[in-house]
């Protein structure tokens, strides 16, 4: 768990990235804004924002959504059913991954196309923070002397090497594996 970069820092950086991508004033963006529904983000814009965050923090964001990873790990049809709707297990995953206060009413289920609408400034900030928090205790040089480097990057105070993080896709797979071990949502 790193403590050099705060949640507020990350939220600010996500707003900044979104503002640059969408050509809007960062001050108009609120943490609860949905990128798709409130800010008008389209498909390639997500790549743009992810890249800006990667460059800002020196991390690698996930290229794939957790539903795709679930399909890979637990088999085809495990997260998305034949009609393109989320399975009950996927809905469970959704509830544990996103702040339930910010989720829509899921009683009628959810179409896979609606899922990108759930991504908010907050949820993306949490994803970034999750990756930043994989910073190990020690740098490869042995020192435990992480510090804030240029911009918003963490570097080793001893050897100057950049912080090393688990990449976003790997982190999702770890999370899915843990959830499965704990709750056994997907039967083998």
């Amino acid at each position, binding site marked *: 768990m790193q403590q050099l970069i705060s949640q507020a820092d990350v939220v600010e950086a996500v707003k900044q990235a979104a503002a640059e991508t969408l050509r809007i004033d960062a001050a108009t963006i609120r943490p609860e804004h949905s990128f798709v529904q409130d800010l008008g983000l389209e498909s*390639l814009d997500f790549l743009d924002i992810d890249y800006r965050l990667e460059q800002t923090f020196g991390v690698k964001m996930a290229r794939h959504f957790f539903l795709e990873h679930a*399909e*890979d790990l637990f088999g085809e049809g495990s997260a998305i059913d034949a009609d393109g709707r989320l399975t009950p297990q996927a809905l469970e995953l959704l509830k544990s991954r996103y702040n339930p206060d910010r989720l829509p009413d899921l009683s009628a289920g959810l179409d896979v196309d609606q899922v990108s609408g759930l991504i908010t400034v907050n949820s993306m900030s949490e994803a970034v923070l999750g990756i930043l928090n994989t910073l190990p205790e020690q740098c490869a040089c042995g020192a435990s002397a992480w510090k804030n480097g240029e911009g918003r990057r963490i570097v080793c105070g001893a050897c100057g090497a950049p912080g090393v993080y688990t990449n976003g896709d790997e982190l999702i797979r770890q999370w899915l594996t843990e959830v499965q071990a704990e709750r056994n949502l997907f039967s083998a």
Partner: protein
Amino acid sequence: MSRPPAATDSQPPRRRVVVTGCGMITPLGRTTAETFARALAGESGVGYLTRFDARGLPYTIGGQIPDAWLDDQDGGFARRHRPQLALCTRLLLTAAAEAAAQARLDALPDRTRLGVAVGAHGENPSVDAAMFLHRFTDGQGRWDTAAMARSGGYDYFQFYRRKPDLAPVTLAARYGAGGPNLALVSACAAGAQAIGEGTRLIRDGRCDAMLAGGAESAIDFVGVLGFTLLKAMAERFAAPERASRPFDRKRCGFVMSEGAGVVVLEELDHARARGAAIFGEVLGYGDSADAYRITDTHPAGEGAVLAMRGALADAGLTPEAVEYVNAHGTSTQQNDVTETRAIKAVLGDHARNVAVSSNKSMLGHTIAAAGAIECILSLEGMRRGVLLPTINYEFPDPKCDLDYVPNAARNRAHRVVLSNSFGFGGQNACLCLGRWDE
């Protein structure tokens, strides 16, 4: 926008443009007949990439043309000029040789009235070229141009191979074509635009015959990397041959492929006068721009609608005349749903009666060649009275609810086809093609 063709007092009837030769090389075959036969059987030309070292990239497949198929069909012309020729130009020459032989182009009386229109983008820079260039820049925007110039600037032949206009010019040189020479670079719409522009040149009397088509080979480091960065290609699939699944709910991107298609377009009376066999007619051409966003196609497919309506108006036909749509059908989430919407917008209730299929389910996406290859497969389908299938169609998508000729070819006589090609960046082209009945 478009005016239907009509003879008026002041204007003579419009010149009709027919197809007197077809040639193609695709991952499914060296010729039109070979490709068509395998497409008819619902085979896929997609496999794991072998052309270059792609290990580690999330995208690993493609529709490749075996090296053994190259350069053996054109009397050695391509072989002799190989160092200067981009792979796409070698493919183009192979396809053109078939088309020219079929049209007996060698017997054409006046080569100054023969034009060329080709959609192609030349060759991408190689890793070697990119790394070579890095030797001359210090990373701060400063170049050691003296050293670069001493070294030859950059690789001599790649300079020629990269130029898109070398493809049509090479074709003109090979066939002595002294007429207009067009190099179109409108991405995935380029092949269809070349045939559309070629049709217009003939109609307007600016030439009597055209070699028109498209060629692409971007299965290389930069091409694959570029579309990987854009996350536009299929990365998740049960097997390579099942990755291209247009209109299927589990589609997740296109499959990059390579190939070339060339038609000989000819003014009808010109073709008849020299006794050329006629394989079909180009009835109309429409094109448009999305003018929406560089990063996304218009969600309602407005540009696609304009192109299809334009082609129909140009042909002087109503939507009810359309019996089959050879879809752009790339297998991306976005294209297939917007294209379905656009087809429904253009054809209205009639869309329910019209078969729609995507050759890309079998061939992958041949980018600049796609429009030309799909034009020829459409003509061949009309000649034989058969609709090629959309393979890998397993899970219906509620948003894609037309008749996609799933998985098996279908015998059906048909006379009028729309062939769609929608380019990345928002350039759209549609050809309206007609069966030829003597």
